[in-house]
């Protein structure tokens, strides 16, 4: 029985009719441009100060809202959401074929792929920014960028787009939207229309941030630190707005995933049987629901501080308030990034090892406690900033959070013990991810210690540490997920030899690059500098070479995955003999995943069938 809601009224007319209108992406861009210009003119007209130009900070802020509204309507929500809301007959109908990926859709699989592709776009833009940074750092003087502010805005764009459109989005908005409804045995996500709108915020946000330097370079990095931001180039307003809309998208994803997991589970899918990745998505979505509104409001305040302007975060106000409010979100953000990766380890290892998941309840407890504790550690980002007397409690919780994080290792290791591990690309990537994240975590123990932190803070040691957690944890796990689910998404299988080539390539290049960041930091290389003392030049030069190799390695894997998706060898529906529900559908899944909603009678990670169990 299908439970797809009837979103469209079938008028009986042939589908081809609707292609007479402009392609949705083009129309979205056109409407965005119109909305942008019209709103800008209206505001400039209403607020005709003698010092105001036609484009001033206030009018550009409102113009941006007009642009995003135009983009969202143009992409298809005008016919499908707005007009029906006012009682006009719904003329919109879900498209078929490749075009459906380039317009509004309510199908969670289409939306998932849209999120993944947008996120991939962000990864390539921000990755290119990283390559430009490494190019500049090959020499100790300004040579690639004309002024240091262009280097600093590149750092900011790299960090902002990576965090808010890749790290927060790929595994949650992308994989989560695609997989979670199937994992819980539902044919739709809970808020499929809202979700269809929110995915289009991602490209809008990425482009807003990427083009922000046109208004003036901002130098604050991804954190928008005050009071620097209030005197920085005007492009900072599009940093706030771009991040705002990206976070809005993630917030909707979170609401959608929580509602889907809570209310759309198939009969018999109790909490004790819920797949690990679904638990991960639930924990992450609660984190998003708690902390994203907080940072969105902070950014609204910072935006007002800039455009009104107000002195909230200057020395007459309190510069520290912004910093505290940023990291109050900023640290949970780190776990928003990593929790899906931890969940994925526990999802894939039992399948590849053909062995029952070890100590499942502790894995779930770990995810939930990471979620709870992550709100209590934020000020460790401020150890040199805050007064020394306030450091210790945050140091305490920072050290304690390693305990629930460690449970993910315990479960993964316990499952691996005496398994029959199939050493293929996904499982190798998972083990690499564990190795990298282990280094990221253990270097975090050094940073949690205030006496050590006071030396290492704001140096490349910290940069190395968080790249080990985020690339090492999240990006490697995302590639594992892509190779693991390729047969699901496309019905095609990669070639072990070519895939493993790419995987070992990125592993070696990643470690060669970022392990040296620790040494650079210890040798006195500080952050946010395009020029640095000459004694660090040789090592920076050589690190850049490895960084370029890493960049090409990622590119190789991305191209190879796309190639297999299109041209790979056809494969069975469930090549890994996985037991979770998403593998009981056809590969690739039909529009309606489950012709009949399945009934779950047991957990998905029990491999004791046909084996005499040990105690």
């Amino acid at each position, binding site marked *: 029985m299908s439970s797809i809601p009837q979103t469209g009224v079938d008028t009986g007319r042939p589908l081809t009719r609707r292609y007479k209108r402009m392609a949705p992406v083009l129309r979205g861009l056109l409407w965005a441009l119109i909305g942008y210009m019209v709103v800008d003119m209206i505001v400039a007209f209403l607020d005709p100060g003698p010092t105001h130009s036609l484009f001033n900070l206030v009018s550009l802020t409102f113009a941006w809202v007009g642009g995003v509204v135009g983009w969202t309507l143009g992409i298809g929500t005008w016919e499908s959401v707005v007009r029906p809301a006012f009682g006009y007959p719904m003329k919109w109908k879900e498209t078929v074929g490749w075009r459906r990926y380039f317009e509004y859709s309510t199908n969670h699989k289409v939306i998932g792929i849209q999120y993944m592709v947008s996120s991939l776009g962000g990864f390539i833009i921000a990755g290119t920014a990283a390559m430009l940074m490494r190019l500049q750092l090959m020499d100790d003087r300004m040579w690639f960028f004309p002024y240091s502010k262009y280097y600093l805005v590149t750092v900011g764009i790299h960090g902002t787009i990576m965090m808010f459109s890749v790290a927060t989005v790929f595994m949650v908005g992308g994989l989560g939207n695609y997989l979670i409804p199937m994992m819980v045995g539902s044919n739709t996500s809970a808020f499929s229309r809202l979700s269809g709108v929110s995915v289009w915020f991602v490209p809008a946000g990425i482009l807003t941030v990427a083009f922000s330097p046109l208004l003036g370079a901002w130098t604050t990095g991804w954190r928008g630190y005050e*009071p620097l931001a209030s005197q920085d180039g005007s492009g900072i307003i599009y940093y706030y707005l771009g991040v705002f809309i990206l976070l809005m998208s993630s917030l909707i994803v979170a609401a959608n995933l929580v509602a889907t997991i809570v209310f759309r589970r198939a009969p018999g899918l109790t909490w004790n049987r819920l797949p690990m990745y679904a638990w991960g998505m639930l924990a992450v979505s609660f984190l998003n629901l708690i902390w994203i509104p907080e940072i969105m409001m902070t950014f609204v305040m910072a935006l007002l501080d800039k455009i009104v302007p107000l002195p909230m975060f200057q020395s007459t106000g309190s510069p520290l308030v912004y910093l505290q409010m940023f990291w109050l979100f900023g640290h949970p953000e780190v776990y928003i990034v990593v929790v899906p990766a931890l969940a994925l380890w526990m999802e894939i290892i039992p399948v590849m090892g053909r062995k029952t998941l070890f100590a499942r309840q502790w894995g779930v407890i770990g995810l939930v406690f990471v979620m709870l504790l992550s709100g209590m550690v934020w000020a460790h980002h401020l150890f*040199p900033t805050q007064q020394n007397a306030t450091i210790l409690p945050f140091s305490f919780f920072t050290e304690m959070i390693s305990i629930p994080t460690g449970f993910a290792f315990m479960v993964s290791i316990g499952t*691996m013990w005496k398994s029959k591990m199939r050493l293929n690309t996904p499982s190798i990537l998972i083990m690499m991810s564990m190795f990298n994240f282990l280094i990221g975590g253990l270097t975090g123990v050094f940073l949690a*210690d205030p006496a050590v932190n006071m030396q290492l803070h704001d140096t490349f040691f910290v940069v190395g540490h968080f790249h080990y957690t985020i690339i090492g944890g999240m990006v490697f796990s995302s590639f594992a997920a892509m190779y693991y689910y390729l047969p699901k998404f496309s019905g095609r299988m990669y070639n072990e030899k070519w895939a493993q080539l790419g995987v070992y390539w990125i592993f070696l290049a990643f470690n060669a690059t970022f392990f040296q960041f620790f040494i650079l930091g210890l040798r006195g290389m*500080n952050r946010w500098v395009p020029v640095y003392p000459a004694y660090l030049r040789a090592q920076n030069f050589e690190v850049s070479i490895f960084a370029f190799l890493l960049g090409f390695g990622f590119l190789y894997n991305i191209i190879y995955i796309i190639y297999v998706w299109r041209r790979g060898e056809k494969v069975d529906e469930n090549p890994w003999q996985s037991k979770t529900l998403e593998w009981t559908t056809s590969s690739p899944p039909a529009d309606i995943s489950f012709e009949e909603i399945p009934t779950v009678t047991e957990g998905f990670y029990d491999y004791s069938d046909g*084996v005499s169990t040990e105690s």
Partner: protein
Amino acid sequence: MKDAVKFGVIWVILSAILEWCVYLVRHMFYTTATIQAVDGQHAADFIFYVVTPIFAFVVLMLIFGFTQFRRRRNDKGGNSPHQFRTNRAFVGIWIGVSLVVNLFLFVHPTASAMENYWNQSVEYQKSPNLLVVDVYARQWQWMYSYPQYGIANAVNSAGNGELVLPVDRPVQFVLRSYDFNHYYDVEADVIHSFWIPAFGWKTDVIPGETRYEYAYPTELGSTAENQMFRVQCAEVCGPGHPYMYTGMKVVTASQFSAWIQKQKKLQSSS
């Protein structure tokens, strides 16, 4: 059981080898020119020794996953013959050890090093020998004044700000973001961070607030000889951030008094 024993033996050997490597590379702060830097170095060493067996444990598990527990090429069979949902002893030990290790690390070196550091600063404040240096950070320069000696702005021969400290004498840095040369503009300044890599710490300079930092230099050195002796802004503060550094020196007491005399002469002549 055979696997467990094998694992245990290799783990002990691997940990011992890695601990030995840590012993070889343990001086990871490169230059430790103050008591505070040495204390930080000791804390870092201690943590390094504690986390190394943990690192060895997980990495060895991953290696076992790659070797011992991998599916053999000709093995077309199904599930692993060893199936268990949990192991109370393993889970109990894991949780117990991770609790103990973390609580222990919090007590030492985290809390102990901080207590040590606070005690040192209290002791230095009482010392009649304390040297007070007012440090002004603004976009994008450092300025140093020595109120005890009436030196308002210490400069080198090129006229750039220069920090000169005597060895074996406690120093109090008073960190502010306004200075005597400019009227105070509330919009003007941003957060900076006062960092001397060889001193093992950094402290942010917050507009509108005054911060204190203490050091007890124990080694002679200068920027010209070792770039770890330099004052570097460590918090991004705008386009001039990478250029916000000055040279510094740690000199003997007699060199210091000679330098003070020179600065005084320089000031009276200007």
